[in-house]
C-alpha cells in the first residue's frame, strides 16, 4: 500500500463503482494485485480466481483441494501466493494466461488461515490450525523457520513495515511478535478482548481475524469480534483493538455504532489516517471508517450483501469486497 495517495479524498464520498458476479459459488477472500488491474478472489468451489476488474471476467486457477482464504503477492517476479484450508501453500505466475501452480508445498497440518509477504518480498509468512507460524523463503520456497508458541489456531500473520518483525494472532486473542531473521519469539501481546468464549454452548469463539499497522503511529491494529452472546447464532459485534507495535500496550478500541452485529473480517489502514473495517454478519455487510480516538465509526458504508473479505488497492483509491451473493464489488471514492 502506497504511503502517498494520488489525491486527497473525502472518506464519506464512497460508492460502489462495479459489481462482478461469479455464478458458481459464494466468494470468501479477495486481494488486489499490485497493479490494481485484477482482484484475486476465492470461492467455496476451491478455485482461486483472477478477476479482471475492467473486463469483469474470471480466470480460474486450480490447485487447491479446499477453500482458500490467504492471498499475497510479489512484484518481482510477479507471483501470487495462496494458502488453503488444505494446508497447501501454492506459488503462481500471477499473470499467465492460464495460471498453474509453479510450486506447491504441504505447509501446515490443517488449514492455512493467513499469509503475508514481507515488504522486501524475501519472505512469506503463514499461520494455521496446527498452531504454527511458518516463515518461507519466497525465492526457493524453502521453510526458514517454524515459530511455535501459540496454543490455539493462528488466525492472522503480518510483517512489520521494516520486515524485521512478524506478528501473529490466534483464536484466543494472543498476539506474538517474532524476529524474522532468527524465528525467535520476542514478545506476547494481549488482544483478548477479541476472544469471547461461550461455555454454555461449549464454544471457543473470537480470534484475531485480521491485522494491519498504522506506521506513523506505531500501532498494531487487530480486527475481529466481541460480545459473542450466541456464537452459534451469529450474535456478536465487530471490534478493533489497537495496541502499541513495540510494547503491546492497549491504546484504544473501535466498535460499530448501535452495537450493529457482525465480524471485522479485514481491517486496513488508509494513508490519509483512517481505518477501514470490512464487516459482515447478521447486521448485514458494511464498511466502517474510524479515525483518531473515536470509539465508533465516523462513517458507515452499507453494502448490498454480507462482506466476507475486503482489500484496499495499493493506490488507496479503491476497495474490493467479496460477498455471499457471489459478487466482487469495487467501491471507490468520487
Amino acid at each position, binding site marked *: 500500500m502506497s504511503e502517498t495517495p494520488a489525491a486527497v479524498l473525502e472518506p464519506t464520498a464512497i460508492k460502489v463503482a462495479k459489481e462482478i458476479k461469479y455464478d458458481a459459488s*459464494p466468494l470468501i477472500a479477495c486481494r488486489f494485485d499490485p497493479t490494481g488491474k485484477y482482484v484475486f478472489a476465492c470461492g467455496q468451489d476451491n478455485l482461486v480466481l483472477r478477476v479482471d476488474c475492467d473486463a469483469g471476467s474470471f480466470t480460474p486457477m486450480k490447485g487447491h483441494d479446499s477453500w482458500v482464504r490467504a492471498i499475497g503477492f510479489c512484484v518481482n517476479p510477479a507471483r501470487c501466493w495462496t494458502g488453503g484450508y488444505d494446508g497447501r501453500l501454492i506459488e503462481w505466475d500471477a499473470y499467465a494466461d492460464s495460471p498453474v501452480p509453479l510450486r506447491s508445498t504441504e505447509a501446515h497440518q490443517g488449514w492455512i488461515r493467513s499469509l503475508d509477504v514481507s515488504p522486501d518480498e524475501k519472505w512469506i509468512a503463514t499461520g494455521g490450525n496446527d498452531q504454527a507460524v511458518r516463515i518461507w523463503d519466497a525465492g526457493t520456497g524453502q521453510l526458514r523457520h517454524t515459530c511455535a508458541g501459540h496454543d490455539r489456531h493462528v488466525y492472522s500473520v503480518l510483517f512489520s513495515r521494516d520486515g524485521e518483525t512478524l506478528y501473529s494472532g490466534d483464536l484466543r486473542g494472543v498476539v506474538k511478535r517474532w524476529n524474522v531473521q532468527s524465528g525467535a519469539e520476542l514478545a506476547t501481546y494481549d488482544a483478548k478482548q477479541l476472544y469471547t468464549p461461550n461455555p454454555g454452548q*461449549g464454544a471457543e469463539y473470537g480470534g484475531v481475524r485480521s491485522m494491519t499497522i498504522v506506521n506513523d503511529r506505531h500501532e498494531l491494529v487487530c480486527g475481529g469480534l466481541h460480545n459473542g452472546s450466541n*456464537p*452459534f447464532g*451469529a450474535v456478536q459485534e465487530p471490534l478493533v483493538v489497537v495496541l502499541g507495535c513495540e510494547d503491546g500496550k492497549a491504546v484504544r478500541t473501535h466498535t460499530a455504532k448501535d452495537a450493529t452485529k457482525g465480524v471485522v473480517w479485514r481491517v486496513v489502514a488508509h494513508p490519509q489516517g483512517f481505518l477501514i473495517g470490512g464487516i459482515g454478519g447478521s447486521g448485514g455487510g458494511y464498511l466502517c471508517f474510524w479515525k483518531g480516538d473515536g470509539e465508533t465509526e465516523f462513517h458507515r458504508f452499507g453494502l448490498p450483501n454480507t462482506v466476507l473479505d475486503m482489500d484496499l488497492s495499493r493506490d488507496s483509491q479503491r476497495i474490493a469486497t467479496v460477498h455471499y451473493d457471489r459478487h466482487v464489488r469495487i467501491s471507490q471514492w468520487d
Partner: protein
Amino acid sequence: MLQGNSCRYACRSAEHALARRQFLGQMVAGTLAAGGLGALTSPTIANAIAQQHKRVLIFFMSGGLSQLESWDPKPGTPTGGPFRAIPTNVPGVHVSELMPHIATIMDKLLLVRGVNTSEDDHGKGQYLMMTGRRQTPAEEHPRLGAVIAKAQHADGLDLPGYIQITPGGGGGRSADAAYLGPQFASVVLGNGNPPSNTGLSGGVTEETDGMRQTLRRHLSRHFLARRRTAQTDAYMQSYEQAQRLMQRRDAFDVTKEPEKDLQRYGEYDLGRHCLLARRLLEQGAMCVQVSHSNYDTHNENFDFHIEQVGEFDRSFAALIRDLDDRGLLETTLVIVMSEFGRTPNINIYYGRDHWSKAWSIAMAGCGIQVGGAFGKTNDHGTEVVDGQVDHGQLFHTYLRAIGIDSTENFRIGGRDVPMADPSRGAIDEILA
C-alpha cells in the same frame, strides 16, 4: 444397500441362547424363593442379570452433528464445505477428514446414511430420536434408555439401569421414563460427577447407617404386610436401589482409571466422560448415554466442527477400541445420534442450519452388521436415494439388536403399551 465389508457378531449364538435360558431359570427360582419384588434384590440374580444383559451406549451429539462434516462427506461439491474425505479401513467407505481416528475403526462401525425424520425442531427431534415416536400432547413416551432398562429388568441391578453423562448441570433423576415408572428413569451425572447425595452424611458411620436401614426395612415390612400397593413397592424399591447405589459409589469415580487411559481418551470433558462410560459399562451398567455439546452451528459451522468433531473422534475411537479389546463390544450396542443433521446449504454466516431430511447416524457393537454403510444420499446430500429409514425403524432396530422383541408390549396399569411404535418395524438389512 450395505457398502463395504461386513462381519457378523455372535450375539444370537447357541451359547448366548443357553445362557439366557439359564438366566431366566435363575430369575424364576429367585422370585419363587423371595416372593415377589424382593427377588430382584438377590445378589445371585442381580449378578446373573449383570452378566447376561446386553449393554447400550448412546452418544447424543447435542444440537445436531453435521453429517457432511462427519459420516457422509461430499467434498468438491457446492454443499461439501472445506473439508476433504478420507478413506477408512473399510474399502469404499470414506468419512470426513475430521475423523482420522474413527477412520481406523470403521470395520467396527455401521453408518446409516439415509435417515429422514422430517422434524427440524430441537426438542421434537430429540424426542423422536430418543423415543422412536413423534411427540404428541396425548401421551409421553419413555426414552430408549428407560425402555431398555425396563425390558431387561434393570431394577434388580446395583447400578441404575439408565445413566446419563452430561457436559454440565447437576445430578439427580430425570423424568424420562414416562409410564414405565421412576425406577427406570435416568440418573444424571452432571459433568461426570457421581450421583448427588450418595455419600453418607457427615457424622453418620457405616455402622449407624446399617442400623438405620435395618430399622427402615423392619418398619416397611410391617407396613407392607397390611397395605401393600404398587406405589409402596416402588417406594421400597427406590430405597433399596439408593442403598445399592451408595455401596457402588466407586463405580462413578473416573479418577480410579489409569492416567494413561485418560491421556489416550483426551484430557478434556468428553475424554473423561468416555472413560467414565467405559468404567460404568465394565461395572455392569445397562445403558449409558454420553452427551457431547454443542453442534448447533448456524454460524461458523466449520470452525466449530473442527473443535467438536476433533474431540469426539479421538475419545470415541479410543473407547470403541477398548470395548472391543475387552470383549464388551460383543454384548454392547453403541449408537451415535443427534436430533437431526445439518443443511447441505452453507448459509451466509458459514453456518449450516437444521436438516432432518437426509442425515446420518452411526452404530457399533452387537446385533448389527458392522463394517460398512447402509443407505445413500445424492451427490449434494440433499435427499436420500437409497435405504431411507426413520426414527421409528431405528428404535425397533436398537431393541432387536440387543435381543429384545420390539413388537412386545409393556403391561402398564392393566393395559398393554407397545415398546416401540407398532406402525414401524426394525431394519432387517442391518441386523446381524
